[in-house]
């Protein structure tokens, strides 16, 4: 049995006079014990999808199951089984770390003691602050506490909606390490993030944009399947270089990429030589063939749609 299945989920809502299509026919499934990532910018429809799966919203069309239960009719079963961490920190700011945890444990009819082994790794970092109000924790600590609260009833499927947004790079890295350990304990995890660099930490990802899944596969397969020749180009004047690249006929797409610009070549172009010829005037020119990463693939898929 799959941890999550979704078939042709559609959802639209009214924003003033306009109808916004938040989800346009989304289908996917998550295996047991899989760490599945929804990667996409704000407004891609990630939160709407999560809310439908955790039974907070009803889809206009399509059907979905979580842990084998149907999201509309069998919602009480799902609510008993899943852990959910919404995009906003779902903690009581005026309750202490320990009070928050105990409260969530009790409403899920369990106790902190019973499932302490699940959260132990994470909670030891929080223990020194056990009596501090949640509102006075740093972003990274709040996020760890929210994760503990979502885990305390030993959920079978864990939904984490943008857990790393607004959290600094160090905490983000730690957070993903925690997720890997949870996965090893057999919990299926659906996580969403706007950060492309987090994709490689998932078993499989869905690149999400404008209410659709652009592509669903393992991050390795996605980058491997990027067909076009790709070059990283650098010069003494990056601004001028970008304009030049954008004007070249043999280049399908050029954009800044860290310290380089990436140039996606049209298929069949004899590439490096072509670049060198056209960029001869640029000072300190450096050209490297590179392999696409998730961000290149995302930009590529976005432009196809």
């Amino acid at each position: 049995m799959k941890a999550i299945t979704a078939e042709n989920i559609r959802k639209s809502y009214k924003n003033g006079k306009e109808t916004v299509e938040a989800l346009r026919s989304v289908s996917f499934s998550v295996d047991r014990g899989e760490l599945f990532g929804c990667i996409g910018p704000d407004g891609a429809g990630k939160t709407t999808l999560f809310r439908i799966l955790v039974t907070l919203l009803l889809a206009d069309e399509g059907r979905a199951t979580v842990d084998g239960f149907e999201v509309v009719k069998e919602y009480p079963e799902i609510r008993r089984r899943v852990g959910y961490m919404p995009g906003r920190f779902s903690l009581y700011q005026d309750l202490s770390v320990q009070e928050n945890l105990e409260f969530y444990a009790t409403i899920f009819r369990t106790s902190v003691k019973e499932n302490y082994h699940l959260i132990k790794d994470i909670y030891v970092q929080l223990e020194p602050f056990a009596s501090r109000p949640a509102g006075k924790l740093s972003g990274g600590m709040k996020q760890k506490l929210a994760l503990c609260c979502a885990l305390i009833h030993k959920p079978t499927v864990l939904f984490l909606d943008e857990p790393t947004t607004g959290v600094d790079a160090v905490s983000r890295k730690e957070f993903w390490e925690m997720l890997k350990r949870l996965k090893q304990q057999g919990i299926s995890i659906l996580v969403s993030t706007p950060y492309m660099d987090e994709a490689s930490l998932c078993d499989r990802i869905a690149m999400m944009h404008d209410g659709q899944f652009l592509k669903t596969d393992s991050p390795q397969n996605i980058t491997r399947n990027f067909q076009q020749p790709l070059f990283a180009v650098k010069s003494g004047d990056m601004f001028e270089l970008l304009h030049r690249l954008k004007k070249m006929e043999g280049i399908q797409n050029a954009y800044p990429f860290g310290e380089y610009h990436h140039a996606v070549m049209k298929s069949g172009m004899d590439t490096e030589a072509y670049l060198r010829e056209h960029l001869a005037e640029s000072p300190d020119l450096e050209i490297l063939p590179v392999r696409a990463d998730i961000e290149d693939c995302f930009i590529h898929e976005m432009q196809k749609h």
Partner: protein
Amino acid sequence: MKNPEKHYEYAITADALSKHFGDFTAVDRITFNVRRGEIFGFLGANGAGKTTAMRMLCGLSKPSSGEATVAGYDVAAQPEDIKRNIGYMSQKFSLYEDLTVTENIRFFAGIYGLSDAAIREKSASLLRHLQLEAEKNKLVQSLPLGWKQKLAFSIAIIHEPKIVFLDEPTGGVDPLTRREFWEMIYTSARQGTTIFVTTHYMDEAEYCHRVSIMVDGRIAALDTPAALKKHFGAASMNEVFLQLARQATRQAD
């Protein structure tokens, strides 16, 4: 102005700038200069003191000690002059969602005292550049996030400020629009505007001319991205950042 030459060269100067809240030192004697037309990346983990430092530079908060000038004006003594000469945009607030595109442009341009004729001309060229002419009478809330942020940036520089402060301008924006946004930043810097920007995306740190990284209220590193990577023996700015941020001892937000 004590030293006009220095202020001609630098858009921002900070000299042992500090801010204390009771016993807590949020910003601890930071010293740096930002050149005119420079894109200056201001990085740091949550709670490192970025926001407090930025507030002082924008004239919103008085330094406890030390000095700083922005556009040649002293942050403690002349905050009003500073506010007239800078633009500001943040991820959290930038535009009024319940006003239309045109109304937002008119409002912000009006605040800075642009004449009606200037506003008309500016908004026409702004809408043309952003290709927002068809959407000009739509409410801002109906625009995709990336467009909003691009519009917000254009509005932040509508009064042609000498310096523009950008606080995580691209958070949550899709990779394509994020790059378009940075192209706007580049163009603006080319025209002489100084850009002071914070971001959580480490690839964006690479787009800056120079980057400073704050740890526990102090500036732990300041240099060009290339020099920083070399110095820390790191392959990317992300690694540089992680190396530095891990030294942090402070636990605050």
